[in-house]
């Protein structure tokens, strides 16, 4: 493989694609016989956790994760295009997700871009290998969208900070070794944002108590995380006191896909409109195939146009001449567009099934084993988590169109 300096040739990339594709086919795990998470927000059992942990470790050991991260931190130090190719092949072959997403996708790049050398040494490799699972402690019971108002306190006491407060909706909070934690160090600050600080905080310390919350699907996946006089080393502070908001915003840029640097791997199982069509092929309406119904056809085609446009917009985003009116539009609206599209597509997939639409996972007669019902419910993780669609629309309106707050 090439060094990071030289741009790889097309034939090198083609060879790589063939190599990764062959490896994935040989190593794609067999169906474990239990439901696998579609996203990292669906890891609700030890069984699922162990399975995904083993898979991610294997992927990393083979050199297909964190390819663009420096070698000294567990990466491969090759141009990012290699990871792009590897990810595309993972999607094509249909392998499980690389589930340690908060580490791989946002804490990792954050540490890589602004962490100290010590922090990089300590955290990055274990993120890639799935040794250390990461979670995110931003939201609180009383402050979700209004993130700048979080009240969890961090008080400096000698070589420690003492944490008190409650975080909630902490994805994988019960499995995580570390949390990216947004807490208030200065309640007196004039602007609420300026009182916040950012910590790379250990979870296995006294006074940290993550309690699983049952999701709307009946499964588990996130926790309410209580901090009661929890002591963490002062060295967990990232940057300076008062820089928490800035760092949190940078993290959200990674999370919303507006900034690059992620280690790679499949963040979620890709579901496309063709899967919906496949599911609906056997459904009848008025005694005829559903797919011949003109109203249903029109709805389906609308979704197909939207899906195609999203994928083309991904290409257009790379052509400056075609993005000059609103240069940040496609990047900043990406989460809003894709999560809302996915929601409507899944909603349709359930609604169009006729009587079968009322069945759920566990019923032998459910179409696709109830996949769509569960997927529809779970999809709200993407329209609520990471900043709700309404908040995303505010961001696009204000930062892309320049509308007033």
């Amino acid at each position, binding site marked *: 493989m090439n060094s990071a300096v030289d741009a790889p040739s097309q034939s090198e990339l083609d060879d790589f694609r063939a190599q990764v594709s062959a490896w994935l086919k040989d190593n794609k795990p067999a169906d474990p016989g239990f439901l696998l998470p579609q996203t990292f927000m669906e890891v609700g059992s030890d069984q699922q956790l162990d399975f995904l942990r083993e898979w991610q470790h294997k992927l990393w050991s083979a050199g297909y994760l964190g390819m663009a991260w420096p070698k000294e931190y567990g990466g491969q130090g090759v141009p990012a295009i290699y990871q792009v190719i590897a990810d595309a092949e993972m999607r094509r072959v249909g392998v499980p997700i690389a589930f340690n997403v908060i580490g791989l996708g946002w804490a990792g790049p954050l540490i890589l871009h602004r962490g100290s050398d010590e922090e990089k040494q300590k955290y990055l490799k274990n993120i890639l290998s799935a040794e250390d699972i990461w979670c995110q402690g931003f939201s609180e019971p009383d402050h979700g969208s209004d993130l700048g108002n979080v009240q969890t306190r961090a008080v400096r006491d000698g070589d420690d900070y003492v944490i008190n407060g409650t975080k909630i909706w902490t994805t994988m909070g019960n499995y995580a070794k570390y949390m990216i934690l947004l807490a208030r160090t200065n309640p007196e600050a004039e602007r609420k944002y300026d009182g916040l600080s950012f910590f790379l905080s250990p979870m296995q310390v006294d006074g940290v108590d993550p309690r699983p919350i049952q999701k709307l699907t009946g499964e588990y996946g996130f926790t309410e995380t209580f901090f009661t006089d929890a002591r963490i080393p002062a060295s967990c502070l990232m940057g300076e006191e008062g820089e928490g908001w800035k760092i949190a915003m940078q993290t959200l840029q990674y999370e919303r896909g507006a900034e690059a640097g992620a280690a790679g791997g499949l963040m979620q199982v890709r579901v496309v409109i*063709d899967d919906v*069509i496949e599911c609906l*092929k056997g459904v009848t309406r008025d005694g005829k*195939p559903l*797919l011949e119904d*003109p109203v249903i*056809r*029109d709805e*389906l*085609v*609308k979704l*197909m*146009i*939207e899906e*195609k*446009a*999203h*994928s*083309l*917009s991904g*290409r*257009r985003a790379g*052509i400056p*001449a*075609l993005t000059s*009116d*609103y240069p940040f*539009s*496609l990047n900043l*609206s990406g989460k*809003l*567009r894709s999560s809302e599209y996915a929601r409507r597509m899944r909603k349709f997939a359930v609604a169009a099934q006729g009587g079968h639409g009322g069945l759920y996972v566990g019923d032998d007669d459910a179409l696709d084993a109830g996949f769509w019902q569960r997927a529809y419910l779970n999809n709200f993780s993407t329209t609520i988590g990471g900043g709700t669609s*309404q908040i995303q*629309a*505010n961001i*696009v*309106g*204000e930062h*892309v*169109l*320049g*509308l*007033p*707050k």
Partner: protein
Amino acid sequence: MSNILSFTDEQAMILDSAREFCREKSPVSAVRELLSSETAFSRQTWDEMVALGWPSLAIPEAYGGAGLGFGSIVPIAESMGRALLSTPLFSTTLAAQAILRAGQNAHKEYWLPQLAAGTAATVALLDGGDWGATSTSCAAARDGDSITLSGEKWFVADAGVAAAFVVWCELDGGSALVLVESDMLAADAIQPHAMLDETKRAAKLNLEGVTVPAANLLDAANADGVLRDLQLLGALLVAAEATGSTGACLDTVVDYLKTRKQFGKLIGSYQALKHPTVDILCDLDAARSLIYHAATLLDAAEAGAELDQDTEIACRMAKAQAVEALTFAGDRAVQFHGGMGFTYECDAQLYIRRAQYSQQQFGDAWHHRKRLAGLLLDSAA
């Protein structure tokens, strides 16, 4: 299905200069001055467009054109739509494509250099409001060395300035395309429609008893295929134009939301206005990606070659998306201007009118989605 989208430096230059040209020649004040004029365009602007070579872009070099792909017209159409600039460019471009695709060499050699040089022409396809009609009541009968037509055509864009009409008619039990020159028409043959979109002109064309030389019959071997392609290319031009208009409409809305105050606050801070405005932006982004995708596919095709299935899908998707985007944008533009939006003076009326006109041209969104369903779902079934 292909998912390609590329844009060359040459196209970027075309887009840049087209944007600049249209902005300069067609400020809203100029658009408004032309609303009640006879032709709805400025002859001088048209001459300058001709001098820039726009009508010649997709005509092969052998016939006096620039020899670029049809996709090169997309940035121009988008720029014109953005400035609500109407000229006979689209009509003339489509007439040229009809001759290129259906004509014999003699037709191409005679007509294409003229059209490239700015002679206006148009296509006359409909004889009612149905873009999905599979036959036409306009009949042609052979009569020795000439052909005699009967019936009429509707919604003929730019009929008043066209030197030639490519007319869809029925001949010997099948479709045919016949070239009718304006001096072959009766004096009162062209009856202008009252237009919802006052930046556009179209007319009824009475063809009853019109006689043309048999040599004016374009090679009819695959007239239905050519007709389909003309409608797809027309749909793409309108899609590109509508995308530009959506962009301008969005700017108009955003400007108002940033300046108008009620209850002591700029109205753009109200989410009931802010969020739908973001929807307009997202719809616009989708439309823009689709029109340039179609342009990319067309540029990869040989000039005058029958459009392949991917290109058909791309043109239909572009049209369906672009007019949905513009009808939504135009509708909200009026509402979001309040009482001002209800006035003739407010520019929102220009966009809402353009929107419904564009919706109809070359088939509305349902028309195209219905055909996409056949293309996308029946092959999969």
